[in-house]
C-alpha cells in the first residue's frame, strides 16, 4: 500500500500525456488503418469493411509504383550522402581546427530553416534549362566552362530523385556532422594513446579503435535520416510541387485526399508510410530500451 502511495502521484501527473498519446498517436493510427480497410472512396459514403483490398489494389496503380521507386532512390541517395558528408566534415574537424565554432555554425544553419523557405531558391538552383536557356547551377557551370556538369536535375525521369536529395543533404549533413563530432570526442584520448604506444599508426587507431566506437552514433543517424526520408513531403512540395516526375508516397497521399477526395486511398498510402517507418524504428526503440535496462 505504501509502495502504491509512493508512485501513484507520479502516474497521475503523467496521465494527461498518456491519454493524449493514447488517443492522438495510437488511436489515430488505428483509426487510419481501419479507414484504409473500408471502401470509403468518397467523402459522403459510410464505407464498409473490405479487408486488405485497398492495400492490394494500390499496387495496380502505375503512380504508386513510381512513387515507391522514387522514395527508394531518394532514401538511398539522401541517407548515404548525408552520412558520408556529415562523417567527412566531422572527421576533418575532429582534432580541432581554428575557427571550428564558425564552421559548425554554418554547416548546421540549414536545419534551422524550413524547406518551404529554401525550396524557393533550390527550385531555381536546380532549374533544368541548359546552355543559352540555363539558369541557376546550370548557368554557373556554363559560365565556369563546366558545361558537362549541366543536367536536368529533378526533371530527369531516371535520376531526378537523386537530384532532389541534394537539398535534403544540404539540410541534414550538418546534423550528422554534429552527431559524429560528439562521437569522435567521446572516444577517450587514453584509449587512442594506448594504441599508439602499442605501435599503431594513426590509420590503425581509426580503423580499430575509433570507428568501432562510432557504431551506435552511426545507427542513430541512420534511423533518424531514414525515417525523415520515408515521409519526405515539405521539400518535394517546395521544390517541384505535385508533379508525377517527383512523386513520393507522402505527396501521392496529399493528392488522394485533396484532389481525388478518396479517404480510403489516402489512408492506405498513409498506412504504408507508417509500416515502412515502423519496420526499422520499432526494433531500434526496443534495442535502446533493452540497452537502457542493462546497467
Amino acid at each position, binding site marked *: 500500500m505504501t509502495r502504491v502511495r509512493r508512485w501513484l*502521484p*507520479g*502516474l497521475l*501527473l*503523467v496521465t494527461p*500525456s498518456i491519454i*493524449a*498519446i493514447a488517443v*492522438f*498517436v495510437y488511436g*489515430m493510427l488505428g*483509426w*487510419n488503418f481501419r*479507414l484504409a480497410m473500408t471502401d470509403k472512396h468518397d467523402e459522403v459514403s459510410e464505407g464498409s469493411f473490405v479487408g486488405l483490398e485497398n492495400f492490394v489494389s494500390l499496387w495496380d496503380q502505375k503512380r504508386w509504383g513510381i512513387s515507391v521507386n522514387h522514395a527508394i532512390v531518394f532514401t538511398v541517395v539522401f541517407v548515404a550522402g548525408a552520412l558520408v558528408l556529415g562523417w567527412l566534415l566531422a572527421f*576533418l574537424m575532429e582534432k*580541432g*581546427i*581554428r575557427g*571550428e*565554432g564558425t*564552421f559548425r555554425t554554418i*554547416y*548546421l*544553419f540549414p*536545419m*534551422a*530553416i*524550413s524547406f*518551404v*523557405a*529554401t*525550396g*524557393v*531558391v*533550390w527550385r*531555381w*538552383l536546380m532549374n533544368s*534549362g541548359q546552355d543559352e536557356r540555363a539558369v*541557376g547551377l546550370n*548557368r554557373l557551370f556554363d559560365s565556369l566552362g563546366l558545361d558537362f556538369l549541366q543536367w536536368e536535375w529533378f526533371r530527369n525521369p531516371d535520376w531526378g530523385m537523386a537530384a532532389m536529395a541534394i537539398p535534403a543533404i544540404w539540410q541534414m549533413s550538418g546534423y550528422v556532422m*554534429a552527431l559524429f563530432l*560528439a562521437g569522435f570526442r567521446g572516444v577517450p*584520448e587514453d584509449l587512442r*594513446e594506448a594504441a*599508439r604506444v602499442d605501435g599503431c599508426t594513426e590509420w590503425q587507431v581509426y580503423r580499430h579503435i575509433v570507428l568501432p566506437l562510432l557504431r551506435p552514433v552511426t545507427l*542513430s543517424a541512420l534511423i533518424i535520416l531514414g*525515417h525523415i526520408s520515408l*515521409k519526405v513531403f515539405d521539400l518535394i512540395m*517546395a521544390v517541384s510541387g505535385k508533379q508525377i516526375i517527383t512523386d513520393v*508516397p507522402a505527396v501521392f*497521399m496529399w493528392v488522394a485526399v485533396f484532389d481525388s477526395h478518396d479517404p480510403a486511398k*489516402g489512408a492506405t*498510402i*498513409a498506412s504504408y508510410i*507508417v509500416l515502412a517507418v515502423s519496420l526499422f*524504428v*520499432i526494433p531500434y*526503440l526496443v534495442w*535502446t530500451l533493452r*540497452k537502457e535496462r542493462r546497467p
Partner: protein
Amino acid sequence: MTVTETRSPSAQVRDPGGRARRRAGWTRGVRLTLLIAFLVVFLIPVYVLLVTSFKPLTEADPGRAWALPEVWTLQPWRVAWEKLAPGIWNSVLLAVPGALISAVLGSMNGYVLSKWRFPGADVLFTLFLFGMFIPYQGVMIPLVQLLVKFNEITQDLTGVPGVFYGAIPGLLLTHVVYGIPICTLIFRNYYVTIPDELIEASRVDGAGMLRTYWSVVLPVSGPAFAVVIIWQFTSMWNDFLFAVFLTGPQSWPTTVMLNNIAGAQTVPYSQQMAAALLASIPTMVIYVLLGRFFMRGLMAGALKG
C-alpha cells in the same frame, strides 16, 4: 568551443626528424582547405537568396541571377512583408504559446519518468518515443475528423463556430500533443543528471511529489526549458504538413502563405526570395543567438547516440 591544437607529442618523439610535424602541418592545411570549400558550397543558396532579394524588378532576371544587384532596393522586402505579415502573426500566435505549453508538459513528464517512476515507466516511455518517429501522414485524416468533431462540440457549448479545425487553437493542440515525446525525452535526459540523493533528502524531509518538483527540480531546470522552448518554437514555425491540412485562409501560418506566394508564377523572383528570407528570420535569429540550446535539442533527438 575551445580548440585543442595538436594533441599528442608522441608522434614527434618517435620521429626526431620533425617529418611528422611537417606532415601534421600539411594535413591541417588540407583539412582547412576542404572545410572552407564545403563552407562556400553550403552558403551558395544564401548568397542567391540575399542578392536576388535586393534587386529591382528589371534586374530580377535569371540570366543575371549570380551577379550582385546594380541598383540595391528594399522594394521586394516591402512587398513580401505586406503579403506575409498576417501569416507571421498567425505563426507567432501558434509558436509562442505552443512552445511554452510543450515545455511545461515535458518538464512534468520528464520529472516523473526519471525521478518518481512507477511500474512500467520504461515501457511507457518507449511507447511515448514511438510518437516521435511516427509519420504524421498516418494520423492526418482521422485528426481532421477529430478536430471537426471538436468544432461541433465547442459550437454547441459556446456558440462559437470553428474553434479547432481550420483555426489556430486546433493547430496549436496538435503541435503540443505530437511534441510530447521529444519534450519528455529532453527533460528526462536532463533530470537524470540530478542526483537521486537530492530527491530522497526532500522525501525524507516530508515533501511530496509536487513540493519536491517545485522547490528542488524546477529551480535547476532552466537550460532544459531553453532547449525545449527553442526546439518546439522552431518546429512549429517551420511546420508545413499539419498547417496545410488543418488551417484555413484566416489562420494560415507563415509557411503556408509563403508556399502560396512562392508557387505563383506571377510573383517575381526577387519578391519570392525576400519572402523566403523574411519567413526564416525568427528561427535564424534564435539559431544565431541561442545555437547552443538548439544544438542540445538536436542531440536529444538522437536518443542516446
